[in-house]
């Protein structure tokens, strides 16, 4: 059943400050909308619960990619196309380029934003595994100021985040310290374009000979939210890669994974494939 669009309101205040003022004046009443690739789908099928929306799509203040010292700052309104065009991101954060390239199609990438991907908070979203592997931080803004937290702490549960109703995501910051790391990402779905992941794993690791000196793993669809796989990381740090450590890492990943059965896949398949992806990455390091 299609929505009656006359029942919905949408405004586009000219500045970020004006948007924040409106959000603060009536917390929870208004929902920000950027590229619309999620909310407009809900509207189309008559399932958009929010009646009052505020467009942030036109805010140049939220659309930037800046390199500063050891970090890259990406504005929440940056589109997937912007990310794919960035030579700085391609050089320092190739996993983010890869994940942006298989988010929807070109038309969706021209509209969808990094901030929207995060705030929509799907456990299957494409960019979170890369952001988790790279140890991103996230800066939230409101009329009362800014706060920055580790991105790993942003997702609180299924489609629940640390974002307050009066806040917007402003910046996602990623370290540029992975030049001597090995990078890995793989999405398993029915196909790359358009399809939503059954499971995905992003990983970076630093090696000293055959010893893993640092490793970070981010996964999609292994829990009710995008997750960093710390149990598997712990059993691998300072270890050589051999049959024993691969087995231990698989077991650790299985212990922390809490996938579900749904229309796209089963919990059993997801857990097995996640272990296989981890093993594939570890063997590629040898």
């Amino acid at each position, binding site marked *: 059943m299609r929505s009656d*669009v006359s029942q919905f309101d949408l405004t586009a205040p000219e500045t970020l400050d004006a948007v924040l003022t409106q959000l603060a004046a009536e917390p929870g009443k208004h929902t920000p909308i950027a*590229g619309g690739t999620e909310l407009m789908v809900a*509207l*189309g*099928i008559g399932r958009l619960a929010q009646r009052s929306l505020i467009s942030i799509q036109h805010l140049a203040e939220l659309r930037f990619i800046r390199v500063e010292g050891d970090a890259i700052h990406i504005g929440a309104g940056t589109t997937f196309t912007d990310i794919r065009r960035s030579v700085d991101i391609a050089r320092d954060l190739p996993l983010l380029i890869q994940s942006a390239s298989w988010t929807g*199609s*070109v*038309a969706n990438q*021209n509209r969808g934003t990094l901030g929207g991907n995060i705030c929509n908070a799907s456990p299957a979203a494409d960019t979170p595994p890369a952001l988790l592997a790279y140890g991103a931080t996230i800066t939230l803004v409101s009329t009362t100021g800014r706060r920055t937290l580790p991105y790993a702490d942003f997702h609180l549960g299924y489609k629940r985040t640390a974002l307050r109703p009066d806040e917007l995501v402003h910046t996602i910051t990623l370290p540029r310290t992975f030049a001597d790391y090995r990078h890995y990402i793989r999405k398993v779905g029915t196909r790359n374009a*358009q399809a939503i992941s059954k499971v995905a794993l992003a990983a970076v690791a630093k090696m000293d000979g055959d010893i893993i000196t640092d490793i970070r793993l981010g996964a999609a669809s292994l829990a009710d939210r995008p997750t960093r796989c710390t149990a598997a990381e712990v059993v691998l740090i300072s270890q050589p890669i051999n049959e024993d450590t691969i087995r231990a890492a698989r077991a650790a990943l299985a212990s922390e994974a809490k996938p579900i059965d749904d229309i796209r896949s089963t919990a059993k398949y997801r857990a097995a494939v996640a272990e296989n992806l981890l093993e594939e990455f570890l063997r590629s390091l040898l």
Partner: protein
Amino acid sequence: MTSITFTINGTTKTIDVPPMKRLLDVLREDLHLTGTKEGCGEGECGACAVLLDGELVNSCLVPALQAEGAKLCTIEGVSTEGRLHPIQQCFLEKGGAQCGICTPGMILATQHLLDKYPNPTMEQIQEGLAGNLCRCTGYMRIFEAVQAAATITDPELAGTSR
């Protein structure tokens, strides 16, 4: 209702519409430009693709208000003075169009692709059209049409999407 002004196929229009009305419905119902089709209505099939400030977008996912001040190009704006655009001509000659529902979106996706990559590889063609579903052709004739269109350079028609 909100007053919205944009340029559509070279003509400036001002219309009063609910601000959350889908651009697709504005095009079809308010402007009677029915060349833009609705397929899935959820951004997966590309039948409603148009160019917004030169970027390919699915018009079913664009609220009308976000088109304020934009330059829009729909399938009606692709041909000039009754003359088919080379992309349209190539789709016609190569059998890239059958039932026609996906064709407007395919043509605009092709135009966007060729704006970015004037000499696209097969991989670039496949990725550029991955958001446009066709249930008739099996895609091969569409790819051939795009390859053929890429070989035609006509300065008179360059930049019609802008």
